[in-house]
């Protein structure tokens, strides 16, 4: 898929993920512009990455690459910063994205709130915010 990865390390003042265990492959892939989810041999698809399949209990379900597109399941416009380092950015949009493959993830949405509604099709981009991770950010398609 290889979505664009924008380097925002210099300006980022918010928290950064700490890749550990089952989440390491996910965060490694973000640096290359790839969005991964887990798809177990039993067919279950899941995100965030876990050491077990939530359907059949298989250990270390393998990762698959998402197409990086989906729709907005719901969203909010934060007028109060939820984290230190987000103060200058208010108001900003955070949403729950339903990926085309099924799993849902929470993500920043980089768009004017007036252009958004529940169901709006979106595609992923990445903001690299540390040496180890880039955050998925969605924009209207």
């Amino acid at each position, binding site marked *: 898929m290889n979505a664009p990865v924008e380097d925002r390390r210099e300006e980022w003042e918010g928290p950064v993920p700490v890749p550990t265990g089952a989440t390491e492959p996910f965060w490694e892939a973000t640096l290359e512009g790839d969005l991964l989810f887990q798809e177990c041999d039993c067919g279950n698809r899941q995100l*965030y990455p876990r050491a077990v399949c939530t359907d059949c209990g298989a250990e270390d379900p393998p990762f698959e690459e998402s197409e990086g597109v989906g729709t907005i*399941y719901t969203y909010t*416009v934060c007028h109060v910063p939820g*984290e230190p380092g987000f103060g200058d950015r208010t108001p900003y949009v*955070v949403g729950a994205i339903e990926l085309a493959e099924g799993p849902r993830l*929470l993500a920043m949405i980089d768009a004017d709130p007036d252009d958004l509604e529940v169901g709006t099709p979106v595609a992923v981009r990445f903001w690299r915010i540390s040496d180890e991770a880039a955050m998925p950010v969605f924009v209207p398609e």
Partner: protein
Amino acid sequence: MAEPILAGVAESDLGETPDRNWLDNAAIATVRALEDAGCALEEVDGVAVAGGNDYMPALILSEYLDLEEPSFLEGTEIGGSSFEHFCGHVRDAMARDEADVVVVAYGSTGKTGPGRDQSLEVTHPVDGFVRPTGLFRPPGAYAMAARRHMHEYGTTEKQLAEIAVATREWASMNPKAAQQEPITVDDVLESRQIAEPFNLLDCCLVSDGGGAVVLVSEEKARELGVPPISVAGVASTSTHRQDISEMPDMTTTGAAVTGPKAFEQAGITHDDVDVAQLYDSFTYTALVTLEDLGFCEKGEGGEFVSGGTTAPGGELPMNTQGGGLSYCHPGHFGVFVLIEAVRQLRGDYTGERQVDDAEVAVAHGTGGILSSSSTVVLRREA
């Protein structure tokens, strides 16, 4: 089954308690609740605490109160519904004769105490997926759920605001309520934007304070001569932890499971319920809980709350102390819904604040971010 009796209830001082820590507030609420029950501290043989800033809260409260070998200890942390959840465990313990006098307590300095540790927690991998998005939690997460409800069912901001207005009307009669000035729907809609679709008055207060409930065995209740307010039904569940995107269906909470169970145990229907005390961290929390407990059909909560249904004189008096929206909200509000349910069933109030001849109350706790749900049916026995 022997049903525990809610023998005493009390709050600590609410609002700002800069000279107290969470434990002080929990202990103060405890001794006041014991006084309310006419019970001595030395008679306490069980302690249940949640939400304290300590990883062994039941032990520290027991030590602080210098209890002698308590036989029942509970510290299950499921957020704001922990105290309703405890009622079930207390019932089981009393059925086994494990304890006679159990204190369920909470304390916090949510307003004046030190802020939360801001370092990114790595013990739960989902936090790395949530916190860097900057989502303002909890309001933004609840707001996302509310937006989904609006999308699916046409619920409006105005309908959500009706809940805040009705709740404030109750608060105007409660001298302990932090906000007592009546408000209108327009006041809510015009208040500062927090996390769309929520404005400031859709959101609960932030307070210091504590609360406690004393549960005693039937035998002990007779000895104390307290009004027999019983735990007639109780059930708990959870749907996810803190990440709202993990909530299976943002328009339905665990109350849809716990409500029917608790009602069935108590042998009641909705028509029997005289007063409802439902966790209202946000206007939406109360709305979705009303639907899930079955007071109206799914999706019809907005219509149900319109026109003062939950206000004084309404069909279903709700959050009669002013709720988390107007009375206090020190973090885990669940203990306060139990306290008010008991007071209404005892007939503690006068005038419009007292729900006429209230015999059955529903107290519902919500924890995390719409994550845990616990329903208790309380009844004034003959």
